[in-house]
């Protein structure tokens, strides 16, 4: 049931660190570390060191520096972090209720985007599996996945345009509204509008994964339950949901990581506006680093992003371990 690559990768990782003490004889352990093994482990280790470990350490170090031109120019200690978390209302503003700022917007995305994508994906997958033209439905729902995020944002720019002669949504609503609704210009609507566009782009992904998971449930189990007199509702909540809980959690982790990395949609659709109401962490990182030229501060934002990703990753690794045990 569990996809193969993660398990395989973990095996490599475990043996390379040598954490798990296998029950085999010590002689065999020695053979594990012969030259061929090292030859196989060497290239990935070098690649990881160059493209992952080095940039990470560099970024962390840079976050404590002024970082002009992205180089080390002047050490500033925790200044960037203190300023970001206490002095920049566009990044985090706990003074208002509900809180505001880029971090809070990421929380909104994490909650609403993730749950809506999974919920709608599950609904479409379940309903589509009960009709004959399932493949057509799935193809249509999957279509947005084939669109680059930038192109997707441009499409939604037209959908959300405030004037009904351009904006699709306002054209549809024009009989009931006297004036176009400014989806992206109104601070109280902008995040909901952006999340809706994001959900539209990702439901297809969830549908395909969940649909495959549903197909893998042995039909005998479902039949047995029905024979025993379970209602469709009981079958759905008592059997189907628990049996696809692992794919759902894989999906949730993937979507959460997407949320933390989220940038392109915001950049193209609103550029963080109106004001700074739709900024997310990755947008702030870009904005401070590239147009702003404050690479140290941008690096600090990147480190905050990394810290937020750690619990998700920890959960992910733990789940891989436990799923292997069972």
């Amino acid at each position: 049931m569990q996809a193969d690559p993660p398990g395989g990768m973990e095996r490599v990782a475990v043996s390379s660190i040598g954490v798990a003490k296998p029950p085999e004889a010590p002689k065999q352990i020695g053979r594990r570390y012969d030259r061929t093994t090292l030859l196989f482990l060497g290239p990935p280790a070098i690649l990881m060191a160059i493209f992952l470990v080095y940039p990470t350490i560099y970024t962390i170090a840079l976050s404590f520096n002024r970082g002009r031109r992205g180089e080390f120019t002047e050490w500033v200690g925790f200044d960037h972090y203190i300023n970001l978390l206490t002095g920049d209302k566009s990044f985090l503003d706990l003074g208002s209720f509900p809180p505001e700022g880029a971090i809070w917007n990421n929380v909104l995305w994490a909650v609403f985007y993730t749950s809506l994508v999974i919920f709608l994906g599950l609904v479409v997958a379940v309903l589509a599996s009960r009709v004959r033209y399932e493949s057509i439905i799935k193809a249509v729902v999957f279509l947005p996945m084939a669109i680059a995020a930038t192109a997707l944002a441009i499409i939604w720019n037209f959908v959300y345009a405030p004037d009904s002669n351009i904006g699709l949504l306002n054209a549809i609503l024009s009989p009931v509204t006297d004036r176009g609704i400014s989806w992206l210009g109104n601070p109280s609507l902008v995040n909901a509008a952006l999340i809706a566009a994001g959900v539209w782009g990702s439901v297809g992904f969830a549908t395909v994964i969940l649909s495959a998971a549903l197909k893998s449930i042995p039909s005998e189990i479902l039949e047995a339950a029905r024979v025993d007199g379970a209602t469709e509702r009981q079958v759905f909540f008592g059997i189907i949901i628990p049996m696809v809980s692992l794919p759902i959690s894989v999906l949730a982790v993937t979507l959460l990581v997407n949320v933390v990395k989220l940038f392109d949609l915001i950049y193209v659709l609103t550029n963080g506006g109106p004001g700074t109401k739709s900024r997310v962490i990755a947008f702030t990182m870009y904005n401070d680093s590239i147009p702003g030229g404050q690479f140290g501060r941008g690096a600090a934002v990147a480190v905050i992003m990394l810290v937020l990703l750690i619990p998700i990753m920890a959960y992910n690794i733990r789940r891989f371990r436990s799923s292997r045990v069972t």
Partner: protein
Amino acid sequence: MSRSLRLSAFALAAALVATACGPAGTTVPPASGGPAASAPEGSSGGSVAPGPAGSINVLSLWGGSEEKAFQAVLADFTAKTGVTVNYEADRQTYSTTLQSRITGGNPPDIAIIPGIGFLRRFAKDGSLMKIADLGVDTAGLTSSYPEGFLAAGTVDGQLYAIPAKYNNKGTMWFRPDVYKDDGVTANPATWADYKAALDSTKDKPGAMALGAKDDWNLTDWFESIYIRQAGVDAYDKLFGAEGDWTDATVQKDVDTMLEVINDKYVVGGIDAAVGRAWTDAIAQVFKPTPEAGTFYEGGFVGGIALGQTNTDLKIGETIDWYPFPKINNTDEVTTFGGDVVGALTDSDGAKAFLQYLVTPEANKVWASTGAIVSPHKGVDTSAYPNDLVKREAESLTSASAIRYDGSDLLPAGIAGEGLGALLQRAIRGDKIDWADFQTRVKAAWDAE
């Protein structure tokens, strides 16, 4: 087995080294990885050297019709000097590309630089060459260019960039046919006249179009009002390192702005305007059946309206502009925006290009395309092919004072909310904490 493996490991390592150290060539990694994605240090040694002898790389933000016009200049340059030009245009991610090139040790020879805050940063980082070191007679430039333009390319008393092209930002675009139908006979000259004109056109078909999703439209409004209401000296101070954003003139500027940018005059209301792209606002005025009579933005609106929005427009009948109305000023003063050209290497090709670019001939070639207004004094207004551009050029030479777009003078690294984002809130009626903005602007100036 193990031999072939070793061989492939070598091949892989060689490929890695080649990718990491070679002059990155055509593609530059995008910024999605942030600072961490920039090239490893130590790879910059020696790669600053120019390409093959007799050619230069030019990184520009001009595409479309602007590029076509500039290509005419480049062709003339190549004909005169024999230096070939590799031209590369990137408008959307220009700053990202340029920054990545510089950080990666592979800067273009010549860069077209938008925004003076940007110029200052690269100059102070030491990435830009001094014009004086490139064989250009800087003393002679003062007779070729008006003072305000050279000042735009100067950082700490040193000239780092040549003004290339500019646009008057004091142009109020309007529909002469709409004004005529609504009985506005004379072009509004004062703020009161202007409001009266908006009142007359308010319902037939609408007063003003605004696309404030592009927040630089709002900073241009702010600056145009400020230079006319608070005066040129106050303007210089506010957009300089000693600027005080808590000064009463700042909020007064916003209040004046709100007299015209409000639900009464802006077609569709403020809420919609904040969600509207500025090109859509141009279309509201200049499409065949207009929804509004007036649109404020710089001289470049003419090219967009005539070239893209509606090719049937007739200058003087369905499209025209008048100077931004006077507020407290008696003389004509205005703001302008434009791009400057700097060199990132001191290769012979880069020197030759800048030496060529300051000649009147180069500017005449460029002006004759009608795509730009040249800042060069050697370009006579007769060089311009149409009346809208000609008048724009005249308006700047005849003004008693012109100043560079103020928001482009501010440091690029203002943490958090910038001026444009802040004005987006202001026109929605939010109260602005200018003291907070002042702290952040000051910090950005100090950090430069």
